[in-house]
């Protein structure tokens, strides 16, 4: 960002930024601008994601979903958010009032802090930290502080349950997350998010996920454990609605409650972007090495689009999982982590090391395996899509045959 700010300064004022007496002021100004943009992006994404998730869920359940607030219900998230904003802000009498009020901000800071190091396209990142991955892992851990303090200070047993579950869960799953990220760091030789993407390529066989069987396993471990860290189904234990009423946020209302779901949906983007940038090739355009050619606006835009598409695809899968799977039990949650994910991640780490030495990136065998794996992976994806299409057609047929019994129309035939 610093380089970008300097360049912008030069373009606007035609002096080197370093020579200007207003350097500090300029940087502060830029900082505010960037954080304003990021915050807005995150909040907007959280809002729209909530609407989209409800529509997808409705479609999966043969419903329609919110469609009356604004055109096709697109303003639903705005109404929800503003309503919560203005609702009475209750603080239970027996709560630890200071911590109760403070807790949501930890969650807020933790998640929105992660956006600083996340790239959006070639060269578009608020701060290309040289410890980017490490920074994201560290700052998202603040979330658990917020959840625990929120649950504990509510002085409600349900909230306490949720908070303690969350503590066990997020701290356990830090380990497989970290280990599976190590694979990528090892392959890229850097912790910076941009250079991890730069060391991958645009074609699927140049992504880290298909580098070797070990990285494929690592990809799934990373995906599962980031679901767990984001409290998504099947790991939504901290707020398990049917068990703990509403988990750690049981006693929250109004604006303070609003922050929790907002952070949860913003976290969707963090999960999607992290998976994309570490394993799925980030913003790389197939056949083009962006760092070797002169920059052009078109390529910038294409790289942003590619990054967004990949991220949103991951987000879509996460949403689909949420509305399909049941929730695991709390002991199974820790069991999955400690007896499966951690050992497998360790094996993958060692395996990848050996693979890297035995079959370097450009070796024939390594490339052949990469191409083979990516072909198989792609075919599986396409098969899944065709299967979904097939089921959809069957479903349509099936309800045709029931004409006369129902006073009900499938959503796609609503009068």
């Amino acid at each position, binding site marked *: 960002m610093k380089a970008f700010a300097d360049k912008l300064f030069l373009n606007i004022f035609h002096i080197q930024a370093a020579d200007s007496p207003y350097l500090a002021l300029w940087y502060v100004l830029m900082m505010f601008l960037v954080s304003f943009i990021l915050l807005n992006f995150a909040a907007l994404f959280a809002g729209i994601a909530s609407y989209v998730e409800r529509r997808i869920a409705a479609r*999966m359940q043969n419903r329609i979903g919110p469609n009356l607030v604004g055109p096709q219900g697109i303003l639903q998230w705005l109404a929800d958010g503003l309503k919560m904003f203005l609702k009475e802000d209750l603080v239970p009498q027996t709560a630890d009032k200071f911590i109760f009020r403070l807790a949501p901000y930890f969650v807020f800071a933790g998640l929105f802090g992660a956006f600083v190091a996340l790239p959006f396209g070639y060269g578009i990142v608020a701060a290309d930290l040289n410890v980017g991955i490490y920074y994201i892992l560290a700052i998202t851990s603040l979330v658990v502080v917020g959840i625990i303090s929120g649950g504990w200070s509510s002085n409600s047993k349900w909230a306490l349950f949720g908070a303690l579950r969350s503590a066990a869960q997020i701290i356990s799953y830090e380990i497989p997350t970290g280990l599976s990220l190590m694979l990528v760091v090892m392959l890229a030789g850097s912790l910076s998010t941009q250079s991890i993407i730069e060391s991958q390529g645009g074609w699927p066989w140049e992504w880290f996920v298909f580098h070797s069987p070990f990285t494929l396993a690592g990809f799934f471990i990373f995906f599962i454990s980031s679901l767990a860290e984001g409290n998504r189904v099947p790991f939504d234990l901290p707020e398990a609605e*049917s068990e703990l009423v509403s988990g750690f946020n049981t006693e929250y209302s109004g604006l303070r409650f609003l922050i929790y779901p907002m952070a949860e949906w913003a976290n969707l983007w963090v999960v999607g972007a992290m998976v994309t940038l570490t394993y799925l090739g980030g913003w790389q355009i197939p056949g083009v090495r962006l760092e070797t050619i002169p920059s052009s606006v078109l390529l910038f835009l294409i790289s942003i689009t590619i990054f967004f598409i990949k991220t949103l695809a991951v987000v879509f899968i996460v949403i689909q999982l949420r509305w399909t*799977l*049941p929730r695991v039990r709390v002991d199974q949650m820790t069991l999955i982590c400690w007896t499966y994910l951690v050992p497998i991640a360790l094996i993958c780490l060692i395996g990848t090391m050996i693979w890297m030495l035995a079959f370097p990136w450009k070796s024939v065998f390594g490339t052949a395996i990469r191409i083979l794996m990516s072909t198989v992976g792609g075919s599986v994806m396409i098969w899944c899509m065709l299967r979904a299409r097939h089921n959809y057609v069957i479903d349509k047929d099936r309800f045709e045959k029931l004409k006369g019994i129902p006073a*009900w129309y499938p959503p796609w035939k609503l009068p």
Partner: protein
Amino acid sequence: MKNPAKVNEAIRHLKPQAAPFEEEMSLNFGPQHPSTHGVLNFLVVTDGEVMHQALPNIGYLHRGIEKLAEMTPYSGFMPYTDRVDYLAAMFANQVFAMAVESLAEIEVPKRAEYLRVIVCELNRIASHFIATGALALDLGAVTPFVQWLREREFINDIMEALCGARLTYNYMRIGGVSVDMPGDLPDKILRFLDHFEPIIDEYNRLISNNEIFVKRLADVAVISPIDAVNFGLVGPNLRASGIGIDLRKTLGYSVYPDFDFEVPLGKGFRGALGDAYDRYMVRILEMTQSCRIIRQALEKIPGGEYRANVKKKLKVEENEVYSRVESARGEMGVYLISDGTDRPYRLKIKTGSFTAMSIVEKASQGLMVADLIALIGSLDVVAPEVDR
């Protein structure tokens, strides 16, 4: 101490409350809780996530139906029976009608019996929809539940075409049923069954064979056959423990002996015999059998009267009877004492959920809090049936 009030006062202090457990947390679970299936309350004593005990506290929906029966004429009591078990109202209708018919020695026409069987089995399917779907919902999977709601709407439509109500049918009458089947209804029911039978497989693919779901239910809250008998479990819960008592077979009431169907038993599908998964799976399998019965009944249904000639103001001689049917939640009994007037002297309704609730205290020991939900869901407890 002749005064009952004083006696009660004395009894109340006979057993003082147990001393609070040390290093244990007691948690008030319900009555307003998303997975208590109505208004049930449990005092859960836990040590962290592990539960030491869950003490059920019922009566939040005690509506005094038994007392109301003493104030209501026989024919007027039918709507109340709907509300005894709103998920399977037909069975309560039937058991009450059977009791009165037995006392008043009324012969029910064959066609009425067949109609009763058809609607009862449809109702059984509808009830198992909620039982199995709500269990999935409690374990965190929303979509299967909504899928069953979608299918349930078709049954509601069929019922509505038949008797005009979606939930509390009030379809049966003493001596038969209220209205005959409309001409196009058999076709509708058959089309629904054709549509529905493949959906069971789809549902199994969606949730029954889901590994997380299986792991959540298998080997959880195992009820041994001995416990099941001791605690008086009935119906699918009892059969899941491997005891094959189905009143449709053992008593052979109504016209059930005419049909060819199997009684699915629990056999430890994915874990121990009598675990939560068995109780779930028995219900899924029962749906298929109900479809079979409906198909046969629609084939064999005779013509003729659908209702015997019964006086409007029915008076019954002094007598008593205990009639039972196999409801969706197991044996449902009505103990009816008549005294020669037009209203019952005493009517006691025995339900499956009441006894199923009493086992919670025993079966919940040592489970986790999340398993309690699986236990309640798999027992398929409905609040009004517990409290009446």
